[in-house]
């Protein structure tokens, strides 16, 4: 910071010495850069404002004018439930796996290939969601049917696996697994970042006292990275909440509210519902869909801001 100040002063002195001519270029450039920064904030605000403006007609409209003849709250509630259910399931599957992957890359794999392994995991994030959706419905879905039958037969007493098991694979279980794969890279990237910053003296101290690698990880790396695991999990949750295409393609939706993960009748999610209905909608139905989008935006915004706040606090410590 101090350095920036001195250079600014030097720039001002130079500018003063040359009669202020140079300052014009400087001022234009710095104003442009600041304007770009402000544009970003305006853009984010704009997203919220335009969604509110376009969603408002649906909020004030009579229930009978809205799609399915329900009030907006009744319309959003099952969708919000499905959204949270799918995302939570995905996060529960992805987080332990992502932590293990991060540990493997930072502490188990030979350092020489660790970077490459990291790229491979990041590639998972680069694959388009439409491809995840197609693979989910055509490959993972059918492949998961036996597993879902097994869950129904053996763990059917748990409400999540009550069945009847889907025979096509178009179930919340499959959608959740695909979402889990999709959010794995972000969770593991956040965890990886912090795991690799664990102070060497702690790690080496533990090993010098005779700790095995696992004991060292458990006593130094995991406590050090605890808040990053939490924030990574929340970022992943945010991703899963807003993911659209995979869910749109895989689920066969019926608008019910159920915890049953393996049956053919699933609650839809906000994002999937928009993707399914928007292209064929018009009038107030569009406004209603935009209003649900606003709800989704609010949910993900809160999740992300909380996650980023945790990370920011960790960084200042």
């Amino acid at each position, binding site marked *: 910071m101090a350095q920036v100040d001195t250079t600014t002063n030097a720039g001002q002195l130079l500018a003063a010495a040359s009669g202020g001519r140079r300052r014009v270029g400087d001022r234009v450039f710095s104003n442009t850069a600041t304007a770009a920064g402000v544009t970003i*904030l305006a853009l984010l605000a704009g997203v919220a404002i335009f969604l509110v403006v376009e969603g408002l007609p649906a909020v004030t409209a009579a229930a009978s004018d809205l799609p399915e003849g329900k009030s907006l709250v009744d319309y959003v509630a099952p969708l919000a439930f499905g959204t949270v259910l799918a995302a939570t399931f995905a996060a529960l599957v992805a987080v332990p796996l992502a932590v293990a992957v991060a540990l493997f890359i930072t502490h188990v794999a030979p350092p020489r290939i660790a970077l490459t392994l990291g790229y491979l995991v990041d590639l998972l994030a680069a694959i388009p969601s439409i491809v995840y959706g*197609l693979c989910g419905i055509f490959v993972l879905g059918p492949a998961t049917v036996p597993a879902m039958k097994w869950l129904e037969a053996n763990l059917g007493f748990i409400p999540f696996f009550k069945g009847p098991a889907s025979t096509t694979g178009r179930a919340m279980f499959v959608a959740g697994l695909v979402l889990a794969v999709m959010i794995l890279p972000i969770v593991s990237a956040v965890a990886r970042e912090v795991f690799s910053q664990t102070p060497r003296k702690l790690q080496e101290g533990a090993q010098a006292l005779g700790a095995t690698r696992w004991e060292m990880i458990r006593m130094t790396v995991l406590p050090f990275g605890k808040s990053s695991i939490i924030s990574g999990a929340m970022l992943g949750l945010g991703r899963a909440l807003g993911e659209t295409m995979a869910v749109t393609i895989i689920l066969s939706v019926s608008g019910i509210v159920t915890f049953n993960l393996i049956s053919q009748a699933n609650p839809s999610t906000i994002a999937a519902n928009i993707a399914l209905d928007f292209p064929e909608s018009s009038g107030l139905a569009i406004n209603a869909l935009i209003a649900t989008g606003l709800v989704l935006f609010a949910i993900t915004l809160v999740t992300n801001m909380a996650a980023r706040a945790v990370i920011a606090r960790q960084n200042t410590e």
Partner: protein
Amino acid sequence: MAPPVEKQADPSGGALALASTGISGGVLPGWAPYGVVAGSALFAAAALLAAGSFSVGVMLLGAVLVACAVLYSWSRAVEGSRRAKDRVVTLAIAAAFGLAMIPLISLLYEVAKRGIPGLSVEFFTESARGVINGGGAAHAIMGTLVITGVAVLISVPIGIMAAIYLTEYGSGKLRRALTFFVDVMTGIPSIVAGLFAYALFEIFFGPGIRLGVMGSVALSVLMIPIVIRSAEEVLKIVPNHLREAAYALGTPKWKTIVKIVLPTAFAGLVTGVMLATARIIGETAPLLVTTGVIDSINSDPFDGRMQNLAVYAYNEYRSPGVMKQASYDRAWAAALTLIAIVMILNVVARLIYRRYKTETR
């Protein structure tokens, strides 16, 4: 943070445990973990074949479980329980990584296998205009290139200028707010970005509006934060002594940035932009609600509907023609094309960075 190492001073720990971790006790041979895994895999495969219900998933699961059990009991007998636990956890972590790689490998394999039958010269050169069943995807490829290109044109200047603001000019509240909200913006759901673009254009052009440029705006919302993040990273590592040397020669700050900082970081900036492009080029949801569906080639983003590869793949799947399989083939071919573009962008971006990055130390 208190050094958690203290916890080790439990009654059974200390010298006794140290002795049992290999100094006085035995040590498994170096090949032990690999041998056990290979043996377990063979065993699991044989057991499943004998039971007459072979499936790769169950076999791998069984192999890992058997390997964990064997390795634990063997290591425990020879090396003691702490070492045994360490070995099992290491194996489990490695297995978890392998599990995470399965989707990547199987996905690439499946897309290649199912996508290749749909590829043909026609796929790349013909549109679907006036064709009942079949036709190509040239209109979709054109749309993807135009929509993404415009998005890049919007995002790169704004993103890089904002990154320059963050690294070179920013201070105080605005900088902190921007850093925070750029991170938050990376989490905006893509469908919400699409709805935003629709809402924005609907206000000016009336309901039901569909334009290629709307898709570009939506994609920009997703791309700008990624560009800023990566550009900020590479601008940050441009050494300060370069800037100071320029200032010492009387160079104005803006010229220092344009002539010294940006060229030094150029490879990194290009890499970042390419990776960001790869991230948005396959987006489906925001385009589904903004650019609409059309069968003929349209290269003007300001004039009417525009098809693109991702939405094309989705529609071929969602509403297949009479010849269902042919439609699915086209969906997979489009998916394969997209994946190929994304992979090429990723690989070339990394190669550029490795080849052209300026030594910053």
